[in-house]
C-alpha cells in the first residue's frame, strides 16, 4: 500500500514538473561564456536570399572578430507580432531588423540612439564616417520618423515605389521617352494599345498606391489626403481637385488590363512578367526579384516615377523607405552590434545583398542592379516622403471602402462622379 502511495506521489510530482517549463522565460543560451554573445532576431526566413547573404556575412564577421558570437533567430515577418512581446518579457534580443518606419515609429523606445555611431568609421566604410557612406535621404527619413530627431534604425535594402515597364514593348510601340505628366502617360498607353499591347495592370495588394500617389500629387501634402479620408461630411470629397483626380483614372480605365478588377496578387505582376501587359502602374523596387522565376535575369525592365496628375501641386514626392537594423538599449555590447550592422550594410556585403536580391544597395558607392537601374535617378530626385498608401490608410474604416470603389473606377466599372458619390454615401 505504501509503495502504491509513493508511486502516486511520484507521478503527481512528475506531472507538476512537466507543467513547469511552460512558465520559463526561454532565455537564449550562451554557448561560449568568454565570448560577447549577440542575439539577432531577423525579419527574414532562413531560406530567403536575404537570409543566406546575411548568414555568410555574419560568419565572416565572427571570423574577423573572434570574440563575438552571433545567435541568429530567423523569425520571418512574424517578427512584427513577436518582437515587442518578447522584449517586454525580457528576452535577450540584442538587435533586430524590420522596415525603418516600423522600427522607429513602433519600437523606438526599445532601441539605442545611433547618432554617435553614424559619426564613426568602420572597416567597410574605407575610412569615411558611416553617415557619409550610406544614402543620405534614408538617414533623414529615419531621423524624421523618430520623436526626437535622432536615428534609431540603420537603413539597408532601400526601396522606392515607381512605375515599371517592359522596355521591349516601349521599343516596339516607338516610345522613346517615359511619361512625366498624366497626359503623356495616357499618350504612352495609347501608343502601346495601338501596337497591340495591353498597356497597364495592377494587383489588389497595391491598389491603394495609385490613388494615394495621385492625391499626393494633387495636394502636394499627405496631411491633406489624411483629412480627406477622415472626412465624413462629404464636403472635402466635393473638392473639384478630387473629381479631377478621379477623372484622370476614368481616362486611364480603357487602357487597363481586363483582369484588373479581379487581380489577386501576384496575378497582375505575372501579367507583366509573362509579356502580356506593358506597365505595372505602381510597385516597389522588389518587383523584378519577385518575378525573376518567370522573367529570368534578361527581362528588360524600365522604371519611371509616378507621373504628375492633372493640375499637380507637386511632383517630387515619393513612397520610399528601407529595411533597417536596431540595437536593443539593454544590449551589453552595442559597439560590437553596430560594427556588425556596419559590416552588413556597407561595402562588400551590401553589394552582395543587392546583387543577389536584385535590390538597391545602401552604400552610395555601389552600383544598382541593371534590372532597377532607372530607380537610382528616381530615388535621387525625391525630396518629399509620402507614407505607404499616401495617407489613405490613416482611417482604417474608410480605407477599404475607398479602395473597393477605386478598384471599380480604375477598371472602368464606374465613372468618376459615381466614384465620388459612392464613397461619400458609404462613409456617411
Amino acid at each position, binding site marked *: 500500500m505504501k509503495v502504491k502511495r509513493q508511486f502516486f506521489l511520484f507521478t503527481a510530482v512528475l506531472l507538476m514538473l512537466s507543467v513547469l517549463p511552460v512558465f520559463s522565460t526561454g532565455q537564449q543560451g550562451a554557448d561560449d561564456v568568454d565570448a560577447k554573445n549577440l542575439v539577432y532576431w531577423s525579419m527574414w526566413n532562413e531560406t530567403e536570399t536575404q537570409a543566406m547573404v546575411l548568414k555568410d556575412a555574419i560568419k565572416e564577421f565572427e571570423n574577423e572578430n573572434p570574440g563575438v558570437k552571433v545567435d541568429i533567430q530567423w523569425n520571418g515577418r512574424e517578427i*512584427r507580432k513577436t518582437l515587442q512581446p518578447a522584449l517586454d518579457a525580457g528576452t535577450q534580443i540584442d538587435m533586430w531588423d524590420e522596415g525603418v518606419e516600423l522600427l522607429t515609429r513602433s519600437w523606438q523606445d526599445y532601441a539605442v540612439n545611433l547618432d554617435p555611431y553614424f559619426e564613426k568609421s568602420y572597416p567597410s566604410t574605407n575610412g569615411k564616417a558611416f553617415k557619409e557612406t550610406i544614402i543620405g535621404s534614408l538617414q533623414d527619413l529615419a531621423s524624421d520618423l523618430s520623436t526626437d530627431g535622432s536615428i534609431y534604425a540603420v537603413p539597408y535594402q532601400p526601396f522606392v515605389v515607381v512605375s515599371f515597364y517592359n522596355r521591349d514593348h516601349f521599343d516596339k510601340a516607338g516610345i522613346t521617352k517615359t511619361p512625366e505628366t498624366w497626359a503623356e502617360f495616357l499618350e504612352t498607353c495609347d501608343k502601346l494599345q495601338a501596337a497591340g499591347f495591353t498597356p497597364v495592370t495592377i494587383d489588389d495588394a497595391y491598389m491603394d498606391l495609385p490613388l494615394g500617389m495621385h492625391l499626393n500629387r494633387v495636394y502636394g501634402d499627405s496631411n491633406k489626403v489624411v483629412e480627406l479620408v477622415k472626412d465624413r461630411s462629404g464636403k472635402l470629397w466635393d473638392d473639384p481637385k478630387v473629381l479631377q483626380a478621379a477623372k484622370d483614372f476614368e481616362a486611364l480605365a480603357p487602357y487597363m488590363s481586363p483582369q484588373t478588377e*479581379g487581380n*489577386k496578387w501576384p496575378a497582375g505582376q505575372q501579367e507583366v512578367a509573362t509579356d502580356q501587359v506593358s506597365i505595372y502602374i505602381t510597385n516597389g523596387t522588389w518587383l523584378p526579384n519577385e518575378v525573376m522565376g518567370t522573367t529570368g535575369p534578361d527581362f528588360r525592365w524600365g522604371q519611371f516615377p509616378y507621373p504628375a496628375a492633372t493640375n499637380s501641386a507637386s511632383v517630387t514626392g515619393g513612397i520610399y523607405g528601407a529595411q533597417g537594423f536596431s540595437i536593443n538599449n539593454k544590449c551589453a555590447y552595442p559597439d560590437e552590434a553596430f560594427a556588425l550592422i556596419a559590416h552588413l550594410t556597407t561595402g562588400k556585403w551590401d553589394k552582395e545583398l543587392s546583387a543577389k536580391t536584385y535590390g538597391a544597395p545602401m552604400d552610395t558607392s555601389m552600383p544598382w542592379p541593371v534590372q532597377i537601374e532607372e530607380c537610382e535617378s528616381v530615388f535621387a530626385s525625391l525630396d518629399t516622403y509620402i507614407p505607404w498608401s499616401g495617407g489613405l*490608410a490613416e482611417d482604417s*474604416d474608410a480605407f477599404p471602402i475607398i479602395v*473597393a470603389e477605386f478598384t471599380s473606377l480604375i477598371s472602368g*466599372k464606374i465613372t468618376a462622379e459615381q466614384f465620388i458619390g459612392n464613397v461619400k454615401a458609404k462613409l456617411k
Partner: protein
Amino acid sequence: MKRDKTMMITFVTPALITFALVFIYPTIRTIFMSFFYVQAVTDSLGKWNFVGIDNYIKLFSSQMFVQSLKNIFNIWFWGGIGVFAVALLLSIILTSGVKGKGFFRAAIYLPNVISAVAMATMWIHFVFSSKYGLLHNVFDFLGWENMAAVQWTSPTNQFASMTVAYCFGMVGYYVLIFMAGIEKIPRDFYEAAKLEGAHIFQQFRHITMPLMRAVMRSSIVMWSVSSIVFFIWSMMFSTLDPQVGTVTPMVYMYALVFGRSIVPSDPTLLNAGAGAAVGVIMTLIVLVVFGIVNVTIRDKKIQY
C-alpha cells in the same frame, strides 16, 4: 475512501491549475481589457487607459466592423443552408447502398485534410482566375462569353466567391457526421415504411430528419462556431488589408491588434482593448446562437 480523495485531488489539481491559467485567466483579462484603450497587446497594466464602454461604442459605429458582422451572418446563414443541404443530399445518397461508398466518402472528405491556405490559393488562382481559371475555361468552352469574363475575385463578387470556396471544403466534414447519424437509424424503420408505401421523400421527412435532431443540433453549433471564427479564408482572399467583401470580426480584430499585414500601421491606429472587445462580442454571439439552437431544436430523447 480518504486515500481516494487525496489521489483525486493530486491528479486533478495540476489540470485545474493549468485550465485556470490558460483559459479562465485570459478570458477574464480579455473582458477586463475590453474596457481600456491599450495600444500594444503586451502593454503593462500601468499603460492601460480606462475608457468604459467606449471600445464597444466605437466598434458598433465602425462601418467595417458592422460590415464584418454582416459578412459573418451571410456566411453562417447562406453558407450554412448550402453546406447542410448538399451534405444531407450526399449523405443520403451514400447511405442508400450505392457502390464505392468508401471511395466517395474519402473523396468528398479530401478537402478537409488539405490546408485551408492551399485550398484558398487553388480556388483563387485555378478556379476563379478570369484568365486561366476553371470557371473561365468552362464558360469559354460553352461559348458563354459574358460569364467567362466575370471577375470572380473583384470587390463586388469576392464575398460570394469566398463563401462558395469555403463551403465546398466544409461539405465533406458534415457528410461524415450526417452519414454516421443516418447509419445509426435501424434499417427496419425504412423497410416498414417502404411496405406501407412511403416514398423516399416521406422516409426522409418522417424517419431520417426526426431521428437526426441531435446530430443536426450539434452540427449547427459546430457550424456556428467555425463561421464565427472565420479567418484564414478571409486573409487569403485579402492578404494585405481587410477588404469590404472579406472582412470578418476575427480579421477586424487582428487588424486592430497587430495592424496591417505587410506595411506598418500608424501605431496610434492600434487598439488591443478594442480587439478584446471584438473577442467578447464574438463569444457572446456564440453563446446566443448556442442558446437559440438548444431552445429551438430540442432533443426528444427518442430511443431506437
